[in-house]
């Protein structure tokens, strides 16, 4: 794909994203100080529209973990949990969250801590470890915890039964929240929240698809942080505007032939949760090798594309049920294969996270599957979500160089994993 195109500066949308994030946390701090709303900590794909419809201030410890990772603050939080008896190999999103909580409670100065919760909500559609994480939060903060059991979407289980089971629990959640807040649940407000979410989700999905263009107007790592608005703020109408403006900006790049970096040679897939502490290193390294990351199934985690204001409760339950991590390995393998086809990808980097089993445990299988189906080249690198003690920069660099050499020499090693 060698190109002499113009090189783009940082997307303007990055500045707007920065402001959306800063405003969100600032507002949460003000809410905590004023006490004007209850604060709830929740998980990525819990039925969060219910919380927004009840006017909770909704915070996401997983998103906070990513921030701590990127700001190199997670290691300290993780270390605190190890001192308290938590194993080193446990999920580092979890250890970051518990470490920050323990530091906050014990006055140990955590990194920009989330304002303390009044309530906790968790869904096990990403993993069952997260339920235990939330139990520990419930213990440390001494606040109630509601758990939404989300059966895995597996062959043979009628999906209507899964949706029904979740919807039934959402009904229980609403009754609990009415008692907890003393307020009647407002179904009209839920419809409005779901409508905003549906527009935001559409904007997010459309924006992500812009990278189908060859050459890509942006690298996947540039787009990835923009999952934040659709995850955390999709109940607000202005979030759809963010994605509309972003899509516009990317369209302009395509029109003007602007690419994200010089000497882009390969369109490559990224699998797994990013190593947040190593984004700068990985970006520089990949660019130096001419590797442009184009897309990832990771983005699908934040799609929430079932939202439908005509069926608010059902669509909220569906978003919870059909969360990407809650899909079986065959679905994930086929979904990944389709991404390769839709985005015209020629290779893949599979980023094994040593403390995240849901994402990593089937990574070998999915990498093998797309190789067999498409004859593409893959490499597996090893690291972690936010704890850089699992990451070896030099080793990863060498592995990526080897991968680039294999891409360069092209055909002989096609269909093989490069280790």
């Amino acid at each position, binding site marked *: 794909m060698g190109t002499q195109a113009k090189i783009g500066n940082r997307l303007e949308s990055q500045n707007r994203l920065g402001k959306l994030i800063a405003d969100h946390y600032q507002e949460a701090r003000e809410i905590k100080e004023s006490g004007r709303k209850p604060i709830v900590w929740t998980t990525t794909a819990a039925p969060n529209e219910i919380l927004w419809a009840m006017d909770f201030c909704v915070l996401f410890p997983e998103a906070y973990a990513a921030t701590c990772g990127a700001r190199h603050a997670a290691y300290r939080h993780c270390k605190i949990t190890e001192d*308290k*008896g*938590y*194993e080193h*190999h*446990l*999920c580092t999103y*979890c250890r970051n969250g518990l470490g920050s909580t323990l530091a906050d409670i014990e006055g140990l100065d955590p990194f920009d801590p989330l304002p303390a919760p009044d309530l906790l909500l968790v869904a*096990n559609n990403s*993993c*069952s*470890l997260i*339920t*235990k*994480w939330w*139990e*520990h939060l*419930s*213990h440390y903060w*001494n606040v*109630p*915890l*509601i*758990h939404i*059991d989300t*059966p*895995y979407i*597996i*062959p*043979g*289980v*009628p999906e209507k*039964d899964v949706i*029904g*089971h979740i919807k*039934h*629990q959402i009904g*229980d959640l609403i009754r*609990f929240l009415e008692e907890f807040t003393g307020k009647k649940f407002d179904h009209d407000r839920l419809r409005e929240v779901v409508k905003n979410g549906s527009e935001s989700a559409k904007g997010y999905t459309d924006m992500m698809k812009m990278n189908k263009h060859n050459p890509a107007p942006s690298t996947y790592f540039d787009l990835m942080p923009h999952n934040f608005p659709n995850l955390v703020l999709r109940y607000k109408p202005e979030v759809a505007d963010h994605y509309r403006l972003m899509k516009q900006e990317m369209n302009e790049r395509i029109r003007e032939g602007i690419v994200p970096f010089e000497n882009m040679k390969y369109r490559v897939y990224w699998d797994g949760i990013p190593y947040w502490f190593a984004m700068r290193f990985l970006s520089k390294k990949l660019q130096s090798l001419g590797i442009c990351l184009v897309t990832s199934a990771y983005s699908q985690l934040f799609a929430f594309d079932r939202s439908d204001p005509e069926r608010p409760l059902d669509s909220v339950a569906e978003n919870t049920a059909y969360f990407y991590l809650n899909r*079986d*390995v*065959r679905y994930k393998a086929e979904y990944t294969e389709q991404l390769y086809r839709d985005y015209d990808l020629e290779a893949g980097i599979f980023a*094994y996270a*040593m*403390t995240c*089993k*849901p994402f*990593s*445990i*089937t990574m*070998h*299988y999915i990498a093998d599957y797309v190789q067999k189906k498409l004859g593409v080249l893959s490499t597996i690198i*090893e690291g972690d979500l936010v704890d850089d003690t699992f990451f070896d920069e030099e080793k990863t660099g060498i592995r990526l160089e080897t991968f680039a050499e294999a891409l360069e020499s092209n055909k002989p090693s096609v269909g093989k994993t490069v280790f």
Partner: protein
Amino acid sequence: MQLILDKLKLRYSRRNTEIVKWKDNTGGKVIGCLPMYFPEEFVHAAGLLPVTLFGDNGPIAHANRHLMTNACGAVRGTFEDLLLGKYDALDGVAAVLICDQVRFFFQVWSLDHEFGFFHQMWRPFNIDQSSRPFLLNELKRLKSALEEFTGNAITPGKLCGSIRLFNETRSLMRALNDIRKTRPGLLKASDLVKAIAAGMIMPKEEYNSILKELITQTRDSDYESGEKPKVMVCGHPCGMPEEEILDLIEEMGAVIVGDDFFTGSRYFSVDVPCSGDPVEAYADFLLNLIPCTTYHYPQNWIGQDRSLSTYGDYVADYVRENGIQGVILLREMYCDPFDLEFVMLKRKLEERNIAHITLNTGHEAGSLETQRTRIQGYLEMLSC
């Protein structure tokens, strides 16, 4: 007595070849069930032999090409056995998706290997009545799948018959377990876990008669229990605990009188109710098992009087009710649910003033000599 125990241990150690032998003798079909909680009674009622799959404790070679070393020993060990062809005689495999590793990985078994029967089951993680309708549907789905596979109807009568048979097994296992409480030291813990495990791979009809004979012989034994510190051993949730560790604990002077192993109390503590519709009864059974580190107990976390660990309460109560002096926690490497619960369990034991020690187990866990020194120090403390 030791002869019967040795016979059961042999059956366990030859478990994969025993399957071939049983099939040759009977012409029957065998379904391998991954630990834990799989409704074996349904498999039996369909005219099949359910056997629990235990991975080998040996080195992992083939599975490491598909799984990183941070997968737990049970997942890697069973997958290794699959790749080595040790499960080739099975007609099918099945599992309750009890943890993230089983949930996300088990399907890979069926994608690369042909099984006549492959079944994944969801036991809801909220252990309360809100889960009952979904759980009931899952049991009905299992029943239909087995009926379709075998062509045999699982009538209420057949299912009740299987439940009664398996309840008898559990009752005999409990009787055996009671012997180590009343006559500590008569049965070695390492013998007991394998005697229990043998019952999970043999036809229950045959096993129950062997167990009855074993219990009779233990009653006839003139063994005199000495004064030794009584301990409970917990952890290592899904797999077979290492014989060497259990023997070491007892050789060092303690006597193990309780456990919560899958190849122990966790398997036999609770019976399936025998009245009413057997599928409904089974749903009640699965909602009333002893607390497990993997599951969530909603009532504990909604109210004001939260316990920091429902599982910890169970362990602490067991210790107090059975006059046990201390707890030894076996911590299998890379078992996330246990590792998280472990932090709260330790606090619970501290809160209840129960002496405890932790030993790491599983593949690549370290030398026995290190464990020996730690156990020695712990038992000296218990004796003070």
